[in-house]
């Protein structure tokens, strides 16, 4: 299983490197090693973009998986709960006011997630229905605020924000990419450490505590981490819907529900989905590009439905 995942991941990785407006699949190794236009494309454009896409997908899927365990609800997802759009709003505001975008996005995500949890809590475990409703309302609110900002901003600015919002991966210079990868890696690492305790929390607060988990402290930490992960992913890449929902749920149907295995697999699968979606987006209508968010939904949704139908017995 894990071996298969690695092979699949590798294939997606190299496939994504070789396809695009310029097809490199013929002389791939040559492009890697020998100087020339192909090497420039590979090192300056493709590789950073694929790495960034992988990180974004991993962060979103990891945050989704964590939120689902944390809130005891397989429907929890950064996008559905309005956390992504909170981050997007924060990021847009940051762009206009002049606060560093990642910071503003994380703050936006944290506020949004905090608001949803506060609205849905009412004392005990957040109720599923309340949470989804609060998330939907928040999503509508932040989206309209975002639209308002777009309508008021100067033309060039709003076009810039809009493109970023649609979720199209850019190719950042290595100088910017490396710290991003570092921070993202740290957040992912911290999420991995939460995985065993997530299983406990999914049994309910009382049981989790009786099994030895300091519930309140853990919940805070996990919420902050999820907001950080979502905020980071949104800063890089705008709002990519669906990854946080589809990937962990597919993964649980395939791998099982034990979070210690499910979380890392989710992260890898999320990374693969975004990289694959981006590769398709770049190559299908080349040289035009389809925003990666559009492709994740187009690829992810049918795949999810197929799995759901095949494995529905396990759910019942």
């Amino acid at each position, binding site marked *: 299983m894990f071996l298969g995942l690695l092979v699949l991941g590798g294939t997606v990785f190299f496939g994504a490197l070789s396809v695009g407006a310029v097809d490199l699949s013929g002389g791939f190794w040559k492009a890697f090693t020998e100087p020339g236009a192909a090497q420039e494309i590979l090192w300056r454009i493709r590789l950073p973009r694929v790495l960034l896409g992988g990180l974004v997908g991993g962060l979103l899927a990891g945050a989704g998986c964590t939120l689902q*365990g944390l809130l005891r609800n397989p429907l929890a997802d950064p996008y559905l709960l309005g956390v992504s759009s909170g981050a997007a709003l924060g990021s847009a505001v940051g762009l206009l006011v002049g606060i560093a975008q990642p910071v503003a996005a994380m703050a936006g995500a944290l506020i949004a997630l905090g608001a949803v949890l506060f609205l849905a809590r009412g004392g005990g475990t957040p109720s599923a229905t309340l949470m989804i409703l609060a998330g939907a309302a928040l999503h509508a609110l932040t989206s309209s605020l975002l639209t308002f900002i777009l309508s008021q901003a100067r033309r060039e600015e709003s076009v810039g924000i809009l493109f970023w919002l649609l979720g199209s991966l850019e190719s950042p210079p290595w100088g910017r990419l490396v710290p991003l990868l570092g921070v993202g890696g740290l957040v992912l690492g911290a999420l*991995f450490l939460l995985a*065993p*305790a997530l299983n406990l929390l999914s049994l309910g607060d009382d049981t989790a505590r009786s099994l*030895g988990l300091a519930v309140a402290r853990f919940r805070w930490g996990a919420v902050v981490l999820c907001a950080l992960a979502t905020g980071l992913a949104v800063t890089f890449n705008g709002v990519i819907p669906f990854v946080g929902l589809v990937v962990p749920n597919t993964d*649980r149907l395939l791998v099982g529900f034990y979070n210690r295995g499910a979380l890392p697999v989710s992260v890898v699968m999320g990374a693969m989905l975004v990289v694959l979606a981006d590769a398709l987006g770049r190559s299908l209508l080349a040289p035009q590009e389809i925003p990666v968010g559009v492709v994740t939904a187009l690829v992810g949704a049918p795949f999810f439905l197929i799995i759901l139908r095949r494995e529905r017995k396990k759910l019942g």
Partner: protein
Amino acid sequence: MTLLLRVENLCFSYPSNEGGRGFGLTSIGFSLKEGELLGVLGPNGAGKSTLLRLLGGSLIPEQGTVSLLGEPVNRLSAKATAQRVAWVPQELDSVFHLTVEAMVRLGRYCRTGAWSTLGREDRRQVARALEETDLVGLRHRPVHRLSGGEKRRVLLARALAQEPKVLLLDEPTAHLDPRHQVELVEVINTLRKDRGLGVVAILHDVNLAASWCPHLLLMKDGRVHAQGLALEVLTPKPLREVYGVDVVMSPPRGECPGPIQFKKTTSAPVVPSFR
């Protein structure tokens, strides 16, 4: 015999809606030694579950102490508490469908490191817990496919995997058919003998308590109404006072009180008021 659990002058109250203090427990005290079994009886809302939560450290007492093996429970970390006392809830509640073995492994959380990697000893303890609860054959089954009695055994096995000294049971036999009831009682008795576990069990069935528990705590309105040996506690007067119904008792059988029958009270009719 080692003293496992000592409860002294335990008081607790929930915050009420009006902002003051609401329902709670008042000055409860008892102790539990290795291998002992204490049954907690009382009508609904007497505070039995609240007591169990205080014993397990998930509620903090306002006054008095709960000490586990000599240490006050509110000074222990969550993991340290879970290594000493395990709670067996009534319902197996899991949104994500784990297998029996995965569920039991979660009991090892309090004895493993940050990433919860199970070592040889951890796996041995999980296997032992599965064996003691007769779940070896079911260990790859998803828990949501099990029957009520099997689920109860999974909860027990998970608690055993914690290697606790004290076991807190919340109505262990509720909703079980007679055969499963008898089996569960037997399993718990064996555990008391083999592991020296001290057990505190909330019970609803007065007759089960009469035949099973040597020591009883009879509660009403957050207070101890009677406590001591079953023969002393299960007499008509306290039972009538606590449950508000008349009691017909058969003669005792050895050390256990005889079968107890309840009937509608004739002396002071309780008229329920619905307002």
